[in-house]
């Protein structure tokens, strides 16, 4: 260790001396021609230019979905909505979803003929959901012998709010889905989700399960 330190100091002295000598010799010249001031110390460290390339970063994904929503006690309805996701890593993403459906009639309403539990505007079922997703099973799907498309089976868990029957309900939504990248930027999804919330619509508090199946097309940007 000592020997290295000595060698270093010696080198430093030699380099310093070598640098000093020409400077001193040229000192008078420098006064005459200041434009040609010689480099005193030749830097050993190469300057590091760093450049951020201007390429597309495509971590956002947005699109629309259609499907069917089974509203507990109110039958199944057509469902449509939009979704926007942000992919943090290849494994984890966050997703915001909004959706809307129109509730049908309960069996009671159908059988009794005239009794109506809800007004028309209260039958509108609208929700939003903020979820975190995990690409649990990434993989590839093969079409014929020449085409392979990246795909993933993912799990999501979200919280949000559902507006139905004149009230907002705190909603927890576990789900699973399948994403297929048709091209680099276009994806098709199949999703199954269960929207869980407490409802006291029929007089007593109960946990309702509202199953949703949907198909969506999304674009990465």
């Amino acid at each position, binding site marked *: 260790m000592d020997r290295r330190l000595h060698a270093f100091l010696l080198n430093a002295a030699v380099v310093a001396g070598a640098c000093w000598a020409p400077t001193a010799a040229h000192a008078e010249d420098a006064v005459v021609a200041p434009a040609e001031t010689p480099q005193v110390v030749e830097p050993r460290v190469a300057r*590091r*230019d*760093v*450049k*951020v*390339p*201007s*390429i*597309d*970063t*495509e*971590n956002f994904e*947005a*699109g*629309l979905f259609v499907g069917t929503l089974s509203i507990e006690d109110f039958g199944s309805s057509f469902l*449509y*909505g*939009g979704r*926007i996701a942000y*992919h*943090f*890593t*290849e494994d*984890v993403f*966050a997703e915001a979803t*909004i959706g*809307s459906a129109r509730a049908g009639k309960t069996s009671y309403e159908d059988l009794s003929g005239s009794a109506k539990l809800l007004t028309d505007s209260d039958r*509108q079922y*609208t929700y939003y959901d*903020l979820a*975190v997703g995990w*690409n649990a099973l*990434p*993989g*590839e799907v093969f079409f014929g012998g020449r085409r*392979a498309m*990246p795909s993933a089976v993912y799990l999501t868990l979200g*919280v*949000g*709010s559902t*507006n139905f029957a*004149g*009230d*907002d*309900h*705190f909603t927890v939504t576990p789900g699973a889905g399948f994403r297929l*990248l048709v*091209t*680099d*930027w*276009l994806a098709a999804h199949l999703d199954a989700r269960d929207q869980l919330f407490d409802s*006291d619509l029929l007089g007593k*508090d109960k946990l309702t399960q509202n199953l949703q199946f949907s198909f969506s097309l999304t*674009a*990465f*940007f």
Partner: protein
Amino acid sequence: MHLFPIILTLLLASLVPFGAGAADAETVEVQDPYIDLHSGPGRGFPVTQVVERGASVVLLRQRTDWVKVRTDRDREGWVNRKQLERTLTPDGAEVRLPGPAPDARVAHRWEVGVGAGDFDGADTVAVTGSYALTESLFVRADVAQLLGDYSNGWLGTAGIGHIFMPQWRVSPFVSIGGGVVYVEPNVTLVQASDRTNSTAYAGAGVRGFLNNRFLLQAEYRQFVIFMDTNDNEVINEWTVGFTHFF
């Protein structure tokens, strides 16, 4: 409710300019002994090509930690960001690709998170954002929807906070602030009117880093609701959330 078609239209409109592709592609020279080209943007996709040192590739697009490149033999594949960190541009500059820096835990500025919790018996869905003024001092803004049995509402707050040990994996933090709470009693109840009140809070919580991008936090805040009458209301809130920082 009326917002719904508008949001949907905006989403639809945002779809239009997609698929334009990478018009402004960049060429870089490989400096690692070799780089692996995977068939998809993930570590599990098989390596289909290898490009050696000195060869040049064109950067096409980036998705999370993966960059799609085209080789000079016109083959395409996805390369991990880390393998491209040591490539050079044609004029010798180093290439830096967007992504978290190694010191992101203490050096980051922005945090965005979602959470759920309990506000005096009502369930809450919260969106939070914060900006770091220094390593340990931050300003924050939160919006929460309150969903209770007897009333619903919204809570919007802004505040300032302090992280005690920003360099620790798990650290306590405190914050204070103020805001507005709007409460709307359920229609099924006896006649009661909507009300908007200002509020102030003091809170404490714990946050823990999961990796260089995420943290989990749990927080308790005590609110004082300033009522029109003379008796102010004190309300407790508990929240757990998932936060992304960058």
